[in-house]
């Protein structure tokens, strides 16, 4: 627990100064991106200027009214939302099974899930590409360049995360509660929706938000396993560098738009993101 004694100026001032500098360094790249996004090409010419005098909205409207980008953004929203809902639901069922049932090798299964998240994605691009375009293709239908393909693929890294986050939450719900409900004649489904769901709601919300953000942020799978129809906003942002080159204002505006969900959800999930990113090894 953090010590809450009166203010100590001796070491305190130096620590405070250090943290202020660290915070400024943390914020500066994002602030600069925002500055660039608010300026026209002409304003960006010459010495860097950190003050936004007039907001050049065209950078944003150019992206937001571009039909391609609209499609990318809608894809990203649909894919992230479907993935978050699917992952949270499946993880709740799986975690409940792992927590309450006496299954053979369940601890091994629990640990095996996390290996899926540890593997380097670049290593699995080639086999995934081949599996999706050739092995899983039925006639002319394949998961390549489909939203459902990405929704399923994102489960590979989001499901283990969700299971590891939810495990502690489900374990903490007293077994007696759902046993009492079972004695009263509830079936498994009724126990899950009537007892577990209401109690695990905050944890489920955090899990859903973080999986949503991870899906939104993903780039490598989206770039490799889609071509036109299912492209996401991160691939759109990357295309700025490779295709159009130097329209920095519009690129910064698109990057800022990519950042919006992170900023919106930051306050809600900041307590949990560390536990999530360290596979639950660290609990705050």
């Amino acid at each position, binding site marked *: *627990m*953090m010590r809450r*004694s*009166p203010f*100590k100026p001796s*070491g305190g001032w*130096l*620590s*405070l100064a*250090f*943290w202020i500098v660290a915070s400024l360094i*943390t*914020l500066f*790249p994002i602030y*600069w991106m925002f500055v660039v996004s608010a300026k026209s090409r002409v304003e*960006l010419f010459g010495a*860097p200027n*950190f003050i936004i005098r007039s907001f050049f909205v065209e950078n944003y409207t150019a992206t937001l009214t571009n039909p391609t980008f609209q499609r990318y953004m809608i894809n990203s929203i649909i894919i992230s939302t479907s993935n978050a809902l699917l992952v949270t639901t*499946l993880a709740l*069922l*799986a975690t409940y*099974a*792992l927590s*309450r*049932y*006496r299954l053979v090798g369940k601890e091994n*299964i629990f640990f095996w*899930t996390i290996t*899926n998240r540890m*593997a380097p*994605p*670049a*290593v699995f*691009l*080639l*086999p*995934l590409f081949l*599996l999706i375009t050739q092995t899983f293709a039925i006639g002319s239908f394949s998961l390549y360049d489909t939203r459902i393909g990405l929704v399923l693929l994102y*489960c590979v890294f989001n*499901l283990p995360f969700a299971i590891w986050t939810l495990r502690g939450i489900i374990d903490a719900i007293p077994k007696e509660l759902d046993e009492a409900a*079972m004695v009263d004649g509830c079936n*498994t489904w009724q126990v899950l929706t009537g007892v577990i769901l209401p109690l695990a709601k905050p944890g489920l919300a955090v899990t859903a938000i973080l999986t949503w953000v991870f899906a939104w*942020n993903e*780039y490598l799978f989206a770039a*490799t396993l889609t071509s036109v129809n299912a492209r996401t906003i*991160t691939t759109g*942002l*990357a295309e700025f*560098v490779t295709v159009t080159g130097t329209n920095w204002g519009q690129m*910064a505006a698109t*990057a800022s738009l*990519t950042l919006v969900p*992170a900023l919106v959800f*930051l*306050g809600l999930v*900041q307590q949990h993101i*560390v536990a999530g990113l*360290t596979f639950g*090894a660290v609990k*705050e």
Partner: protein
Amino acid sequence: MRSQTTGWLLLAPTLIILLVFGLGPFIYVLVVGFTNWNSFAADPSAHFAGVQNFRRLVFDDPFLHALWLTFGFTFFAVLSEIALGYLLAQLLMRDIPFQGFFRTIHTLPLMVAPIAVGATWRLLTVPGLGPLPYYLDRWLGIDLRIGSFANQAFAATVIMDVWHWTPLVTLTLLAAISSLPKEPFEQAQIDGANRFQVFWYVTLPLLKPAILATVFIRVMDALRTVDEVWMLTGGGPAAATRYVGLHIWRVVFPKTDYGYGAAMSLLTLYVTIVLCWLMYVALVARRELPRSE
């Protein structure tokens, strides 16, 4: 009351998805790596080729170069992150105002998409636009052009990674430090230990599990860095920042030499596992050494 069947049914959807899309590719890459499958070769079908692909890999200079670069990148990035993260965590343990505020700001980089991190750092470092080249030139006379100088590009990717991931180390170590028991520190003070002795003989051994876990997570993540570097430098200049993930994705993948690409993926995975294992042995073995009582 609780039948095993229901349990397995609840677990089934998760297991099926992870088996198909998680374990499936692994087995697939294991098989393809030993074939000469190349969809644009004269004979596009896959045939068993033994270890031929792996023999080629040993003499594949661009691949070995990429692997070597990745190790360098991982080493410098993770080392800086641990040192800086530890310092920041210790400083936040002091009583300073706005702790919650600082923590929130520090969490922000963790939520940003890697591709957007690359974009922000590109906006910072592009000559003629970014403030970094401008002020480095004006104040220090340094000509910063990460598109031309290999060392600068490498350093830029390391600094970007430090910016992105130091917060994770800070917050992890902060959680570990705040859960440390007080008694050993009080005892050390009674025994008259100086600050360095307390750090070396009390703090560090107590924090070792947390630091180890953080190092492992960071090393695994750093080894697979692709998006940010792709956005910042595109792997260039030449191949100066073409780390192994980038190499597989941009160079080998488009060549449709599937057998060879699979072998390379397999070797990369193997090297990652071996590296983590070696680190584990080295670090845990050191902990087992007897400490002075």
